[in-house]
């Protein structure tokens, strides 16, 4: 008869930290942590010592000082007497502006090109392949600089618009002026009563959603399908137009006009903004197109055939069967392309567009000499944007994940 003897209850020996698997991982982690902290401590110790020697210990009060430089493209009120902090906010808004504009146009162009690349039309699909390969394989910085060069060197000067035999003329029914100082487009002027029109417009958009839900519910219950697209289009336009005329056309357009050496009136889109926006959109669109193409190809042919066997029409097959499945594949890489676009917008500095990198990381940094603080804030801001986008992506992924049994 054998008895199970308890393991020898020896005391804890120091070598067990290394040889005993129960403790070893702890040992490794503690060593790693100590090494890491030592490295960080060494780096920051050096930094503190160096900065103290230069007489500029870490201090963020420079953000309150007068900036003293102008930013010509701005979304909120700003002048050179305001603080560096305010300039940074203007820059941040500019970054977000170009990022949002870029994401929208890049998506539109990218989806179109991605779909056209799959076209059965040989020449169209070849042209799209050429587009994608051209844009993907040349650095985005080069695209930005080239677009800027087009704006400056190719487009006419404002003075070319002058006189009876002007070299250049305004486009789109004399409403848009494309010059080498930027594009001037008409800006809306809101008169009295325009709030009512805007309110009607917002209400009609809400109405579209409500109607969509109702139509969906009705279809679930009765099986009848309404021509939702046309009705929604009607709701979108008709009430606002009626309100517009009822209120006596309160919203009008102010057209840009040539006065003196430059155009006045209307909305001035600086060519730095447009160059950056165009270049980023076209560049990112090439990547999005590839994403879209691979997403559509990832839906297996059996799905399309099964849907056809159920008797769905081609349009319905695309919208009800192919797209929902393709989107699951497309959206995550698409969002990482949005993230890339946002990060690439920091190249604004190459064309003089004052985004956050241009204000905080450019002029403010050079004027105040506060490299450490400026770059810390700059990185923190970009990190926040990136982390926000990736959080959104994770939430979306969680929602559309295949529910497997």
């Amino acid at each position, binding site marked *: 008869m054998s008895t199970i003897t308890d393991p020898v209850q020896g005391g804890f020996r120091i070598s067990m930290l290394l040889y005993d698997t129960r403790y070893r991982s702890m040992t490794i*982690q503690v060593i790693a942590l100590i090494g890491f902290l030592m490295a960080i401590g060494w780096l920051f110790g050096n930094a503190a010592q160096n900065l103290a020697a230069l007489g500029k210990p870490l201090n963020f009060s420079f953000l309150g000082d007068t900036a003293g430089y102008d930013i010509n493209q701005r979304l909120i009120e700003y002048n050179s007497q305001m603080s560096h902090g305010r300039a940074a906010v203007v820059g941040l808004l500019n970054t977000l502006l170009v990022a949002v504009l870029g994401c929208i146009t890049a998506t539109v162009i990218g989806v179109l090109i991605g779909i056209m690349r799959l076209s059965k039309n040989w020449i169209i699909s070849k042209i799209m392949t050429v587009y994608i390969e051209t844009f993907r394989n040349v650095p985005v910085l080069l695209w930005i600089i080239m677009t800027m060069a087009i704006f400056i060197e190719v487009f006419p000067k404002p003075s070319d618009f002058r006189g009876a035999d002007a070299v250049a003329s305004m486009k789109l029914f004399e409403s848009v002026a494309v010059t080498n100082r930027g594009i001037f487009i008409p800006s809306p002027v809101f008169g009295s009563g325009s709030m009512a029109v805007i309110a009607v417009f917002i209400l009609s958009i809400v109405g579209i959603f409500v109607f969509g839900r109702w139509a969906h519910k009705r279809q679930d219950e009765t099986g009848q399908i309404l021509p939702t697209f046309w009705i929604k289009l009607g709701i979108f336009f008709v009430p606002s137009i009626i309100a517009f005329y009822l209120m006596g056309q309160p919203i009008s357009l102010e057209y840009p006009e040539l006065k003196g050496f430059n155009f006045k009136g209307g909305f001035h889109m600086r060519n730095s903004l447009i160059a950056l926006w165009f270049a980023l959109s076209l560049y990112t669109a090439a990547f999005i197109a590839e994403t879209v193409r691979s997403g559509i190809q990832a839906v297996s042919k059996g799905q399309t055939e099964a849907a056809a066997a159920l008797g769905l029409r081609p349009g319905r097959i695309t919208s009800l069967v192919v797209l929902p499945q393709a989107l699951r594949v497309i959206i995550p890489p698409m969002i990482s392309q949005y993230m890339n676009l946002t*990060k690439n917008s920091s190249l604004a500095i190459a064309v003089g567009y004052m985004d956050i990198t241009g204000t905080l990381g450019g002029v403010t940094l050079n004027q105040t000499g506060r490299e450490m603080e400026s770059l810390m804030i700059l990185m923190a801001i970009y990190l926040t944007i990136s982390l926000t986008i990736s959080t959104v992506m994770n939430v979306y992924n969680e929602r559309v994940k295949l529910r497997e049994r």
Partner: protein
Amino acid sequence: MTDVSYVRTEMLEEKAPPVSQAGIIKWLRDNMFSNIPNSILSIVALWAIYYVLSDVLPWAFQSSWNANSLNECRSAIAAVYGEGASGACWSVIHDRFLQLIFGFYPSELYWRPVVAFLLMFVAIAPVLFDGLPKKMLRFTMIYPFLAFWLLWGGSLWFPLMIIAGFALGYLAFGVVSKMTSSLVGMIAAVLVPILWWLFLSGDVATMLQSIIPLSIESVASDKFGGFMLSITIGVIGISLSLPIGIVLALGRQSDLMIVKVICVGFIEFIRGVPLITLLFVASTLLNYFMPPGTNFDLILRVIIMVTLFASAYMAEVIRGGLAALPKGQYEGADSLGLDFWQSTRLVIMPQALKISIPNIVSSFIGLFKDTTLVSIIGLLDPIGLSTNIRANMEWNGVIWELYGFIALVFWLFCFSMSRYSMYLERKLQTGH
């Protein structure tokens, strides 16, 4: 009785298919004019191609190749093709070709970067092609030091001492892990080379240099420029990022909480900020993090930051490779009784790296394109040089020729690499 047969005995002659069902017409019908919208699209596309080419081709070919300034070039074009003809001044490329390739590298030493570039292909060949003898990998290991020596010049003893550091680390690992355990050996293998490089290697190299002088003319970093600079930064960045990326990827996969948090934090931080901010750190901040009085040159700082940047992306690429390995491989290695490092070294990594090669190539393409950003902090990469050239009196006003040339070179590099990675992907695909 007559022989009546209703069965045809001789075959009819084969006829050509209808014109609309064969050859180019059928192809055109199927692929370009299958229905009305398609036909309209095709015609619009053809018109667009004609429109672009009819502008670009005459411009590109009504060109001048031998002129010393933009004015000279324009008048040469006007003289040949008539007044008012606009043509490309390719002479700017002809004039500044060597500068665009080598920057301000001394012209009598051009052979060194060229040799380093050609040897690079020898070094990566055994990684990419299976048929080659495995002994060539030894050259691959030596190559980075050789390339460093060829590009920057100076005493051969310095790179040799750095190699000696690795050899010492390997020795220390062998000796110490026999005496105690492999973990202590690992720590020794890290500590010994670091101590060697920090305190001894410089003096030893200087001493050896004074005994046996083995050096070639050294070239300062600020002479580097043009495509040579882009390739140098790109290649060094990607090859140094590979080992760091592997460590980070393993750390991210690891069960050890603290290690994992450190690795995830690093990767997400680097991937969350644009490269340009890291380059700003390189140009303004990096010296602050070093002991007071240290000052090393801008290109080296840029390479450090680019390496950190690339290693975060590399870590994600390799993590993808690790995740793509079937679980059976991990379990198989475990069941053979291999410990973590053995299974990683012998079973997991060889396969994971092989799967990741196409993505490594793509991230190299990305990094190579991103090297143009160094022009923003004042290095003379092709874009930086083009700004220089355009600011020059002779070539003030030249746009398309210069940018077009730079874009074309980048395109050739990136496109061929991306095709190659697609080919690899197909070759490595072992599924159906």
